Structure formats: C-alpha cells, structure tokens
C-alpha cells in the first residue's frame, strides 16, 4: 500500500516536473548578435594604437544599416578606432543579452537604451560623460534635452536626447483614394480629413457605406493592449492626463471616471463599432501589422506612431496615395495639448568599458550635427536639432507629413523627477487590468459596466501610487504626493519643470 502510494506520488511529481519545466521553458528566442565591423585600412601617418569599441543596438532594418554606415564614416575620421556594431533582433533579446553581458563582465563599450535609464543607473551599468563634456557641448542642445532621471542623475550627465521633442507619438493615416471614393472631397478637389472626434466617426461611417464590405472606415487593433491606450491619449486634447503620468498633474488624483473626455473616447470607439465602421478583424491586428492592412486598402484610416511612414515606404513602396495628419480634437474644441516628458537618453558608455576615451569620441559623433543631418536626410528619424527637420531635408513626403503631424499638438508637460529626482524611485505596482486591457474589454463587451470599471481603475491606480510613495518613504526617501502636483500647469502650454529650491 505504502509502496503503491509512493509510486503514485513519484508519478505525480514527474508529471508536475514536466509541467513546470514546460512553463519555465524559454518561450522566446534570443537572436545571437550579428557583429558587423567594417574597418578601413589604417593611414600611413603615425596613429595611436588601434582600438576596437563595440556598439549594441536593436533597431535593425534601415536604422541598423545606417548605424553601420556611420561607424564606417567615424572610422574614416578616427582611423585608429573601429566601431563594431552588433544588431539584436528585438528589444527583448537585447535586454536579455545586455543583462547577461554585464553579469559576465563582457559588456559592450557603447549601446542604445534597452532598459529604463533608472534601471541602468541602479545597476551601475553606465558612466557619466562629465569628464569630457564642456558647457559649450551641452549648449548646442535645445532646452529640455537634459533632464534628471532621463539622461542625468544627481547632476551628472550620462547621455543626451537625440530625437525630436516634444512630439506627439500618435498621428492619423488617411487613404486618399478611399476618401475620394466615399465622396469626402472639398470644393477644391482635395480630400476632407477629420478635424474632430465627431468627424472621425461620421467619415468612418461614410467610407464604410461606400465600401460595401470591401473596405471600411477605420482599422483598430485589439490584439495588443498597448496601442489601445493611445485612444485615451486623445483625451489630453480635452485637457485630460496621459501616460506615463496618467493622473491629473494639478491635483494628484486619477480622473478616468470623472473627466468627461475619457467617457467621450469610449463612446467614440463603441459608436464606430456599432456603426460597423471598424475593419472586422480587430483581434488579428496589432501595431506591427496594421500598416500592411492599411496599405492593402482594407480601411481608410488608422491611428499609430509616425514610424509607419518608414514601414510603408520600405514594405509597400508602390502605395503612395496616403496622407499623415494630426489626430482629431474634441468636438467642443481643443483645451489641451499632448504633454510629453523630456526626451530620454539613447546612447551610453558602459561602466565596464576599457576604452572610455574612444567610446566618448563615438558618442560625440552621435551628437554631431553631421550625424543628425544624415539621420534626417536618410529618413531614419527626426533630430533634436529642430532646424534640421525642414521638409526639404526630409526625403520622403510622408515622413515630412509625419513630422509636422506629430509636432502639431506636442508640448512638454510637468515632469516630477526634474523637480525632485527621488520621485523616479516611486514605481507603482502594475494594475491589472490596466488601461489598455480595460479598453479592450469595454470594446468587446466583456466589460459591460464601463463607468464602474473606470471608477475601479481610478481607485486601484490611486492606491498603487500612494502605496509606492509610502514604500519609498519607509526607505528614508523624502517624497510625497505633493511632488507630483503642479498647480500652475496649463495643458495648452509648454511647461518647464524647474528643480526644487
């Protein structure tokens, strides 16, 4: 009897072990980095001893190729320094390899940001640039390029913001042919684009009616909850708060259930769905593939980041009859801009680098106007140096439109860590369901009482924020809810957060 029970127990343990190893098994693949180095032959003149520094990035594609070309140009300028560029297939693979590299003391010399800036600071992965920086070097950047907890910590500078800021991450893509087919053309023969939320719904319905099942007004993806959050970002145009500081910065309170704009956005989404205006494959669409459906004329509009202009250009070069416009504003009129936090640092020197002086030269190259001119002219991105982002400098007309559309509503909002850097240590526990999940649940009808869901969301997020503040205070850090409140903030204007006196 006892041996039978023992055998049964062993069998059950084996079953459970198989289950656990299955659950714990690696579920992703990490691509091995592809080291690409294209050194040029050293010149005949006496040079310092040759040095190779490594640079890790996970952009890939055209951006990855661009960085390799820049490494070659850098080598021509500094013939004794070779920059070995390593590509990673995605941010996940990059993060995994990055952490392991530091554990094993094989970290790259320079790299792009894969983890948050504060994680890199707390783990001692990066070193400040102050030994090489001069006031003149920093002065070339616009106001807001350097900020505590974004690229500075305790007064030391670790990186710079290379990309244009402030900017609205979301823009609206318009298929001009489908708009014309639906009759959405003004007296001058140009297409009419949605200016307000009401326009968005009515135009989507008109286009769907014209499509007769062959195409629809708008594409929305509910496969990944993160892009769904962007719909709530529209509420900022009505003066509501947005991620990552998604509480009212004037009161320190979460207002999903009390600010009317969020209810209006939900009604907009449900209204478009009820109208039948949404391409009926929302569950298949995510931000990675939405542009391909758009390029196949499945729907006439979608909202996403400006980066899809590059994707459309690369993958669907023959599809040109589209336009990128700013996101629509509330029907009652715009009472807020889209606030963004100061730009983050992107290029860093490793704390383990054996060649910090050479690494600095590479970082300096990445901050040079020449690099930024080529960044823009190659259609890679928009520079922190705003004067370089002229339409005539941007090769692709759609990327130029994307820049203008993303700049239309962007302002800097209050940034608590700039006033009190210790607020960056406040990390509320994730709330489940969070905004994106909840919006999907409301959209599919799985959450029927969405008004109550918004009330619950406010309560959970408030509790998480207050608990996080309390936890940090128990560690002796001087932080309170007052650090997150900016009574003088005007949602329509740029806000420069000054350090606490």
């Amino acid at each position: 009897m006892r041996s039978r029970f023992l055998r049964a127990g062993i069998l059950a343990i084996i079953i459970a072990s198989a289950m656990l190893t299955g659950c714990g098994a690696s579920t992703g693949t990490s691509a091995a980095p592809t080291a690409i180095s294209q050194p040029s032959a050293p010149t005949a003149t006496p040079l310092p001893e040759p040095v190779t520094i490594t640079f890790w990035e996970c952009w890939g594609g055209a951006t990855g190729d661009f960085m390799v070309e820049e490494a070659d140009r850098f080598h021509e300028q500094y013939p004794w320094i070779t920059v070995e560029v390593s590509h990673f297939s995605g941010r996940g693979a990059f993060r995994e390899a990055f952490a392991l590299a530091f554990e094993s003391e094989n970290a790259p010399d320079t790299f792009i940001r894969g983890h948050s800036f504060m994680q890199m600071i707390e783990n001692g992965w990066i070193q400040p640039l102050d030994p090489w920086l001069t006031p003149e070097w920093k002065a070339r950047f616009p106001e807001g390029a350097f900020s505590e907890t974004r690229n500075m910590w305790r007064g030391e500078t670790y990186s710079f913001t290379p990309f244009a800021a402030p900017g609205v991450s979301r823009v609206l893509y318009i298929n001009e042919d489908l708009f014309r087919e639906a009759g959405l053309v003004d007296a001058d023969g140009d297409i009419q684009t949605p200016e307000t939320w009401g326009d968005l719904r009515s135009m989507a319905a008109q286009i769907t009616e014209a499509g007769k099942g062959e195409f629809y007004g708008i594409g929305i993806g509910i496969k990944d909850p993160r892009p769904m959050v962007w719909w709530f970002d529209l509420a900022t145009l009505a003066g509501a708060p947005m991620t990552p500081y998604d509480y009212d910065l004037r009161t320190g309170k979460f207002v999903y259930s009390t600010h009317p704009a969020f209810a209006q956005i939900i009604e907009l989404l449900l209204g478009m769905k009820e109208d039948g205006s949404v391409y009926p494959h929302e569950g298949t669409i995510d931000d990675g593939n939405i542009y391909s459906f758009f390029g196949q004329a499945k729907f006439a509009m979608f909202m996403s980041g400006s980066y899809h202009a590059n994707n459309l250009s690369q993958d669907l070069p023959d599809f040109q009859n589209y336009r990128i416009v700013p996101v629509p504003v509330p029907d009652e009129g715009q009472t807020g801009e889209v606030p963004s936090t100061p730009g983050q640092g992107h290029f860093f020197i490793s704390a383990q680098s054996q060649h910090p002086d050479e690494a600095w030269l590479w970082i300096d190259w990445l901050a040079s106007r020449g690099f930024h001119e080529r960044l823009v002219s190659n259609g890679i991105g928009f520079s922190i140096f705003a004067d370089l982002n002229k339409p005539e400098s941007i090769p692709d007309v759609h990327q130029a439109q994307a820049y203008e559309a993303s700049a239309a509503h962007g302002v800097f909002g209050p940034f608590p860590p700039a006033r009190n850097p210790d607020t960056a240590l406040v990390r509320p526990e994730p709330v489940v369901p969070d905004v994106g999940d909840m919006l999907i649940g409301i959209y599919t009808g799985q959450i029927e009482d969405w008004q109550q869901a918004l009330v619950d969301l406010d309560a959970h997020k408030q509790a998480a924020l207050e608990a996080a503040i309390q936890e940090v205070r128990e560690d002796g850090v001087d932080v309170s809810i007052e650090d997150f409140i900016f009574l003088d903030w005007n949602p329509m204007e740029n806000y420069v957060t000054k350090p606490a006196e």
Partner: protein
Amino acid sequence: MHNLWSSIRKHIWSYAFVMPMFVLFLGFTFYPLLASVRYTFYNWDGIGIPKDFVGFKHYISIAQDPFFWNAFRNTFVYTIVLVPTQLTLALGLAVILNSNWLRARSVFRFIFFSPIVTSSAVVGIVISLAFTVVGDDISKALMGVGVLERPIDWLGNPHTALWVVIAVGIWISLGYPLIYFLAALQSIEPELYDAARVDGAGPFSLFWRITIPLIRPVGLVVLLITTLHSLRVFNIVQVMTMGGPYFATDVVGTFIYRQAFYIDEAGDSEARLGYASAAALFMGLLVMGISLLQIAAVRHAARQRSENRIAQS
C-alpha cells in the same frame, strides 16, 4: 548495496549511454527548476541577484488573483476539449492510414504529420492572417443567408477566439498521437484479426475487442503526453491572440510570460520573474494534486471492478 553496485557494473554501458542525457537534464532542467523555486520568494526583475525577500507573498497573491484562475480555467478547457478530440481523430486516421485498401498512404502520412515539423509560432501567425481572408468568406456566406448581421472577428470575439485556438491546437499537434497510434496498430499481429473474422467478428468487434485492448498501453502513454503538452500551451496563443481579447484566451503559459517579461505602457521593462516563477510552481503543484487525485480515483475504480468480478464469479 553490494547487489546494487554489481547490478550497475553488469549494465555499465547502459548507464554510460544514459549519463550524458542525465547530466544535461540535471544542468538544464533540474537545476533551473530548483533555482526558480528560490526566485518565488523574491521580488526580482531578472537582473543581478534577488535581494528583495517577500516570503510567500507571491503565492498568496496568485491564489487570490482572478486573472490567474481565469488562465487556469482556460488552460483546462483547452486541455479537456483538445485531448479527447485529438486522440479520437488521431486513432481514426491511424486506422485508415493503416488500411491496406488506402492508396498513397505515405503521402497522406506526410500530409498529416507535416504540421509537427513547422514552427507553431509561424503557423499561428499565418492562420491568424488567413482568418482575415477565410473568415471574411465564412462571414459573408453566413450574412448572405441571414444568420449573421455583421462579420465575425473570429480572433477578436471572446465567444469564438478560444475555440479557434483549440482547433488550431488540435490540427498542429495531431501528428504526434497519429504516429504513436500508427506504430501501435502496425505491431498487432494480423493473424489475430484473421482468427476473429473466422469466428464471425465484424469490423466493430474487431476494433473494440482486439485493436483497442492491444493498443491500450500505447494509448495511455499518448494520453499522458498529449495532456501534458496541452497544459503547456503557449506559442499558438501568444502569436494568435496574446491571451486576448481581454484575457478570453489567456492560458497559464501566457499569464506567466506576461508576468516574467512585463512591459509597461511606457515601453519599459517591469519584469516580475519572482512572481512568474511562483505562478509556474503554483500551477505545477495544482497539476500534481489533480494527478494524484486522478491516480487514486483510477486505482479505486480498478479495485472496485476487480472486487465486482470476484463477487460475480
């Protein structure tokens, strides 16, 4: 002890051939399993050494987490539907593929086995995209006869998404039990069937009284493997629906993945490997408990049958 050592020496080459796999098992399965048990007692983001000890907090949180239980329920629905359906289909197909009257049997075997050798992630992506075409045609046909008012979003509708995932799961791993059953059928002596036909047995009797009893040992192994495999479902769910819409297809695998590699809405990593490890271990303990109950129930039923037979005789 002397007997054990002499037995090992007698079969030394068997142990020698098993040893490399055993060492790999210890290093890449057993040790990570033990290590993950330790992580369950910490808040840990996967970087450096776990420092923030939280005791049993994660286990208590998981036991009270309605999303974990939702994933647990979906996993068992997936398993309870998939296993009998797949095994029935596999056995039926194996009987047909083992038939002498079927021409081009090797071609059909290749067709049914080929999904196994394809990447389930790639299959998931292709099928989810194919639904935008095939799904459209099905919706239009149903709308044409008045069954539907508007097209169905098969993967975005909480009432259909899980069944689509189950159907894909049945298809993609059908080859495994099929091959096992085929091998078992081919090991049955044909003379047994000849003798039974001489005694007047029909096709159903041949299947029920000869085929089933003789392939039962293999069937039990296939049942166990298929059940374990389906409880660990992850790839096709993650690529087809990411556990959505709104957790309607969330399984324990995707729940654990989301906790382990959590990306916040700002795009920064907030990995909770300690919590994810606790969820995995919790699931394992639950499955172990259920397995023990099953084993006890099966043994009890067998004992009852045996006692009834003795009583009748």
